[in-house]
């Protein structure tokens, strides 16, 4: 796997029996020695799962025009953020389709921090730097220096608290604190991608292995990409390249809740307004098979026997069975008998609501 990057934890993953696979330009663990199902169960049933998600990118935006710049390049209303708050947001093209989905952290009136997808990092940074030319802002890609660990599950706070002076109880859902950990500065937010309580931990690479080992010593167990995808799919959380891409807008992706058309101008706004008034070309729905089977990405979906769309993410959920997200024609979002084609057979499915299993995030 030459040419692939390694995170600071690479040797730790191998020691823990991590099965390393290429992922977004990195060699990352798809699972460890106990397997994805046990890892999934550990997170869902009260443990503290630790995920190396260092492949993700971080961008610091600073300068007098930071707010105006982010209002223009992102979809959510950044003026609503208070210091220490995070929100989910997106970068759109002029055509209203997704460049990426991101989280935006407000550090101060003149400083923000963005977390972006690994596979989109260079595209995002180039876009942001190009747009920044018209504003008094600096856009700094800090991805190469930053380790990102997610600690997820009911025991996350117990495992993390001993490493910090900051009282984690004071950090609410989608809030963050700038902390000192192992003598270095970091950011800890009560955010995640699993539907469980937990944190995302941004730290300098130099202390990453130390923090990783301390969290394991406090009872955390490592979780690979396979279990991470199970956990996020059960919540119905969108993943770039699956539910969102440069061919759909927030109207199709059910992400108008992060797209604030009343906040002033932003890139993609006009196109989104047009799409919304014309109506979406596709709609994202949640489905559940009513017979045995596993719906998987790219499987075809039929309504009343006619092809209507395709699955974007699908899985076997130990708690909910065969569940999937799918884009279908708008007229089939709410009516029509659905089937999923699995190896040539039509397996019946029903529409359901998200999340597929109960969310335990702290609100």
């Amino acid at each position: 796997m030459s040419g692939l990057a390694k995170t600071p934890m690479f040797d730790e993953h191998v020691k823990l029996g991590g099965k390393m696979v290429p992922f977004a330009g990195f060699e990352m663990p798809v699972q460890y020695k106990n397997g994805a199902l046990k890892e999934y169960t550990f997170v869902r049933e009260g443990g503290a799962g630790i995920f190396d998600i260092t492949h993700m990118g971080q961008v610091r935006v600073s300068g007098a025009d930071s707010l105006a710049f982010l209002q223009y390049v992102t979809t959510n209303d950044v003026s609503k953020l208070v210091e220490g708050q995070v929100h989910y947001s997106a970068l759109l093209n002029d055509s209203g389709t997704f460049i990426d989905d991101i989280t935006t952290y407000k550090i101060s009136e003149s400083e923000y921090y963005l977390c972006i997808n690994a596979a989109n990092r260079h595209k995002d940074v180039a876009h942001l730097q190009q747009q920044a030319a018209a504003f008094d802002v600096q856009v700094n890609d800090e991805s190469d220096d930053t380790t990102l660990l997610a600690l997820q599950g009911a025991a996350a706070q117990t495992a993390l608290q001993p490493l910090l002076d900051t009282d984690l109880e004071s950090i609410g859902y989608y809030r963050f604190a700038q902390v000192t950990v192992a003598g270095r500065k970091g950011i800890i937010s009560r955010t995640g991608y699993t539907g469980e309580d937990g944190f995302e931990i941004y730290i300098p690479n130099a202390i990453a292995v130390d923090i990783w080992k301390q969290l394991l010593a406090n009872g955390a167990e490592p979780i690979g990409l396979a279990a991470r995808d199970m956990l996020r799919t059960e919540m119905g959380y969108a993943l770039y390249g699956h539910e969102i891409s440069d061919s759909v807008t927030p109207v199709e992706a059910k992400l108008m809740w992060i797209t604030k058309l009343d906040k002033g101008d932003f890139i993609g706004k006009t196109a989104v307004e047009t799409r919304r008034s014309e109506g979406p070309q596709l709609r994202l729905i949640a489905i559940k098979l009513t017979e045995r089977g596993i719906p998987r990405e790219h499987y075809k979906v039929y309504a009343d026997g006619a092809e209507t769309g395709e699955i974007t993410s699908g899985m076997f959920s130990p708690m909910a069975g065969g569940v999937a997200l799918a884009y279908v024609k708008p007229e089939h979002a709410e009516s029509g008998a659905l089937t999923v084609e699995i190896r040539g057979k039509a397996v019946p499915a029903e529409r359901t609501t998200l999340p597929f299993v109960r969310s335990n995030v702290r609100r």
Partner: protein
Amino acid sequence: MTIPADLKYTKDHEWVRIEGDVATFGISDHAQEALGDIVFVELPEIGRTIDAGEAYAVVESVKAVSDVYAPVAGEVIEVNEELEGEPEKVNTDAYGAGWIAKVKMSGETIELMSDDEYNTFLEE
């Protein structure tokens, strides 16, 4: 990694136990370990006639869908229905409770290896 001496193996990591004219099929310990947690097994219909080397079943792990190929030709006379509810038996007992199907042999086989030959094949 276990490789029982009383079974034959294929290059696709299936095993076959031949007793008289009945052959029992499964996947090897190596195969189940490479696939990871198995969460679904699609069994063949009883009475189906399968050729040697034909895909007769499907196993699905958390991340992947894999065909399972018949080591010998024959007619399916029994399937392991317990795998419908407990597919993880393929992981926990690949050569025992994780068997997939039994066929009445019709003669034709693909290249089969002894345990020693399979072990050598795995090491290569």
